[in-house]
């Protein structure tokens, strides 16, 4: 092909205090292609997109659209020259109607007033192109997230853009919806639009992209034709070191250190009317117990009962052989149980505080405010965990919000490890972080386990549960339906168990 690229970014540099987010990054987009931008968390994908859409101003480099030098300084400007963006988190106004969300910022005006009729009609058409048929006059908030995401896409499409940027648009869509989106993208591609697609899902990358640009640590690694780059090669280029794909997919858990004879925590018939049917669980020190099951099967609920967040009305819990009543998280902490909740952003990190403060939080809370940890000690503890867990940061005083997702997760892990727990509950510790960081987290989990910690591991990615766990308790419909030893299990056997319990 001798087609000229529509968009060329060259030598883009951008630094934030303490970090060089982009170092000499380049990107080419051709009309009529879907171009995947890949990289781990912290590789600089989001920053690159922010530079392109005018949210951030680059420190150096040039952006050319159709050969002309551009320098968008605000989002409106980027939109006006034909660069539309759909962001990862839905950036629409929930209080406005669907139609309004699609057209706001460029309302058609008839006479002195906004032409609502045209807006409603054209919104309907725009959504119909994505095969969505809804009442566009209703507020956006009255629709589920997937629909909202499609509305955001419809908005981007209706701006008659030449360049469409999709920043992880599929993270809230189900398979069917993703396919619908892809159909729409293929149509747009045929019309000659250049589409930049950012995602963490390898399957989706290969399903839709023509070419792939890989970033690593803020640097440009390469640009490849999707058909010429195997999955394994892609992962290797992203991670920058060799990873055996097979080992990632389903390495059965190697037996770990010595397992205590008696369970540390033993739940018997633990249940809560309406949320969870009675469940028996034994969690041993030196062992990882995985909770397997589909979404809504009761994984998080189980964890919350064990940590005393949710009220239980049947069954008993024994900790270290003694019957206890865990009716508040405080009690659970006193018994050496620690809990990493699943929503890292809202229930985990405190973004404005430094890494040190975030790590020290749980330990200080356990000691009470009158036994203040001297700052020097705090720093020693923080530095120790930063080193031990490999948290990538210039120093411990950096606000944690500036770290990438994987490093934030490690800091959270450090927070609980610092309290020296006997048992650790990890709810979705690998959500929203890239493959290499996932592997690292899983390794850390296993390493802690070898040191004699009892771990309850929850993940919606079955391959991870299989990889980490010594034993897997399989849940379905808020009920435990069985237990498998990790080394005997593969995805198929777990799924068979879940499917079999249906009848």
């Amino acid at each position, binding site marked *: 092909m001798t087609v000229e690229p529509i968009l060329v970014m060259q030598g883009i540099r951008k630094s934030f205090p303490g970090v060089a987010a982009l170092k000499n990054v380049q990107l080419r987009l051709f009309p009529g292609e879907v171009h995947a931008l890949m990289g781990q968390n912290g590789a600089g994908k989001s920053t690159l997109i922010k530079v392109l859409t005018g949210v951030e101003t680059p420190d150096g480099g040039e952006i050319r659209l159709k050969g002309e030098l551009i320098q968008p300084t605000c*989002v409106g400007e980027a939109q006006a020259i034909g660069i539309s963006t759909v962001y990862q988190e839905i950036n*629409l*106004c929930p209080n406005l109607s669907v139609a309004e969300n699609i057209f706001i*910022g460029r309302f058609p005006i008839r006479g002195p007033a906004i032409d609502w009729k045209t807006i409603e009609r054209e919104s309907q058409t725009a959504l119909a192109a994505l095969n969505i048929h809804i009442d566009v006059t209703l507020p956006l908030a*009255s629709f589920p997230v997937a629909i909202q995401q499609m509305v955001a896409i419809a908005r981007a499409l209706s701006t008659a853009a030449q360049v469409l940027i999709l920043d992880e648009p599929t993270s809230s869509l189900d398979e069917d919806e993703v396919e619908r989106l892809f159909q729409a993208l293929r149509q747009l591609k045929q019309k000659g639009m250049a589409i930049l697609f950012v995602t963490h899902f390898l399957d989706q990358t290969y399903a839709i992209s023509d070419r792939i640009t890989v970033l690593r640590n803020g640097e440009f690694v390469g640009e490849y034709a999707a058909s010429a780059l195997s999955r394994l090669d892609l992962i290797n280029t992203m991670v920058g070191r060799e990873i055996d794909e097979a080992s990632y997919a389903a390495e059965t858990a190697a037996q770990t250190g010595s397992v205590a004879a008696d369970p540390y925590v033993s739940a018997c018939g633990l249940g809560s009317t309406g949320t969870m049917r009675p469940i028996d669980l034994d969690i041993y020190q030196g062992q990882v117990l995985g909770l397997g099951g589909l979404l809504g099967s009761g994984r998080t609920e189980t964890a919350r009962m064990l940590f005393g967040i949710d009220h239980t009305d049947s069954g008993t819990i024994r900790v270290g052989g003694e019957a206890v009543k865990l009716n508040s998280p405080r009690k659970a902490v006193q018994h050496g149980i620690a809990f990493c909740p699943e929503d890292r952003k809202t229930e985990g990190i405190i973004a404005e505080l430094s890494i040190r403060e975030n790590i020290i939080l749980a330990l200080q809370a356990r000691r009470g405010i009158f036994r203040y940890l001297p700052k020097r000690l705090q720093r020693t503890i923080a530095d120790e965990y930063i080193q031990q867990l490999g948290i990538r940061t210039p120093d411990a005083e950096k606000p944690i919000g500036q770290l990438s997702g994987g490093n934030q997760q490690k800091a959270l892990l450090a927070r609980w490890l610092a309290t020296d727990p006997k048992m650790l509950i990890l709810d979705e510790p690998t959500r929203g972080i890239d493959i290499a960081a996932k592997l690292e987290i899983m390794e850390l989990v296993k390493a802690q386990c070898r040191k004699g910690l009892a771990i309850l591991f*929850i993940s919606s990615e079955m391959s991870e549960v299989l990889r980490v766990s010594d034993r897997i308790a399989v849940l379905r419909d808020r009920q435990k339906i069985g237990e498998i030893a990790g080394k005997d299990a593969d995805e198929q056997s777990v799924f068979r168990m879940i499917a079999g319990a249906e009848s």
Partner: protein
Amino acid sequence: MNLSRHINARTLPLIVTSLLFVALFGFGSIAYTGFFSAQVFINLLIDNAFICVVAIGMTFVIISGGIDLSVGSIVALTTMVTAALVEHHHWSIWAVIPLVLLMGAGFGLLMGVLIHAFQLQPFIVTLGGMFLARGLCYVISIDSISITDESYTQIAQYRLMLGEETFISISALIALAVLAFAIYLAQYTRFGRTVYAIGGNERSALLMGLPIGRTKILVYTLSGLCSALGGVLITFYMLSGYGLHALGLELDAIAAAVIGGTLLTGGVGYVAGSLVGVLILGVIQSLIAFDGTLSSWWTRIAVGVLLCLFCLMQRLFERGSQSFSFLFSYWKKPAEPSNNTDQEASKACLTQVTTRTAA
């Protein structure tokens, strides 16, 4: 038009407020002789014209997600400046009124710039504006200045006859004109819709390429302008300027907006609702006046109870609408998930990774 389609969590508070007004007015008509007349109704407008205008400005601010505590003080300052210029300096009212309107708008503009440019909390900035403007009143005079200027009193006392016995004042007409313009501004202009968008989610509005800064500054300018106009209307009503005029008016304006269905968190509300809110405050006052045995402070008690009830009601409606939303069928053909076989089960497990909901 399908009426039921327009009844949702957003419009319901407004509908309930309107019904409440009708109920209160109806109660008065039955309980007190002479209550049921067009004049009593119009008097509500005449007596509360200034609150109405101020509440309209406040509604814009609240919809944008902010708050303006300075309105009462700007009203007082306007009355002082007007009275001083007209009485002590014998300016023509045609010069004074544009000047004070400009002053109010300028005051609002200044606060808007502070709020936007330095990312300050509207609460604090306008609290500062409130003290500043109230203080400036006493620089002019610590006493009340009555206005005796002839052209001024003529306008103030002019009555436009509507039929045999009913009349309406200039102030009420101005308030209605402001209301009509505000509805146009809120519903049919880019500025108005941007205000709603900012109140809904400021960051989203920014990422959608909307002019956030300009709009926010303009919202406070508009509120300042409305306050100044409210001040002019008070001078028509009271024929005086005084530093103690409109004490606590900002809270009445907020109350009127909230009773009229505007959410304090921003993004939701109707300008027309604030008029109904003002009318409800007025009708409670009238009821108490007609009764004759109750102290006028009962108005406050009634307003307090109403405010709490309305906030509660809005929250309940919101909860209600959330559970309704699941009933909407939005896809053309709903896909039935089934995971009977291994293959489908593994598929389901893959998709759940992409699903947002927590387990």
